[in-house]
């Protein structure tokens, strides 16, 4: 289990090469990466977070995923600060003996990171800057778990 909250970019390939590399009890690894979408004239995105609470909240979400799906390993990396379209914002990786658990745990992690980890996105366009509003659909997504 690992959580990293950082301003710097991460190397997705290198992270996945290292992830659960020394384990022999894993048959499935699932990963997801979130990318800044450059539509709507987006110049860049700014992500604010709550240092201290962010790491704690993600670690709690991760611990729940590990327990519910018997994960052998998991990794969450989430960036903050200024990000340009095309840049990777975050990634999750899960490792389990079988793929159904690895997929479900990755989806669970994504759903919870969206509305329970203290990050706030602000989109900057030619017209100015606007905070991204939370979507009801994101809150509803938690109910399936």
């Amino acid at each position, binding site marked *: 289990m690992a959580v990293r909250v950082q301003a710097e970019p991460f190397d997705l390939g290198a992270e996945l090469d290292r992830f659960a590399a020394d384990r022999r009890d894993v048959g499935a690894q699932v990963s997801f990466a979130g990318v800044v979408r450059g539509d709507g004239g987006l110049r860049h995105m700014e992500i604010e977070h*709550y240092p201290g609470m962010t790491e704690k909240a993600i670690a709690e979400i991760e611990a729940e995923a590990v327990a519910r799906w018997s994960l052998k390993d998991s990794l969450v990396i*989430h960036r903050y600060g200024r990000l340009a379209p095309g840049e990777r914002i975050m990634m999750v990786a899960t490792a389990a003996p079988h793929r159904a658990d690895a997929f479900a745990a990755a989806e669970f992690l994504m759903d919870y990171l*969206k509305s329970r980890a*203290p990050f*706030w996105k*602000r989109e900057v366009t030619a017209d100015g800057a606007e905070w991204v509003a*939370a979507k009801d659909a994101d809150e509803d997504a938690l109910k399936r778990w």
Partner: protein
Amino acid sequence: MIDVLYFAWVRERIGLPRERVETQAATVADLVAELKAREARYEAAFADVSALRVALDQELSEFDAPLKGVREVAFFPPMTGG
């Protein structure tokens, strides 16, 4: 004394990221009422608390939660991570 933190547009409306507040407020809602009574910028930030979330000592909580023993209160809009 309690540390009060603000994030995202709450921080922008109030005009500062954190402050130390001298208060005897029993609950989060009482603290919000005290802050709103201070100045228009607090009134603007806390106009609709249903649009806000609160964390007590870095754990998500509720506006009717007691403040006894709490050292850090944070106010922010619904989170938009991922």
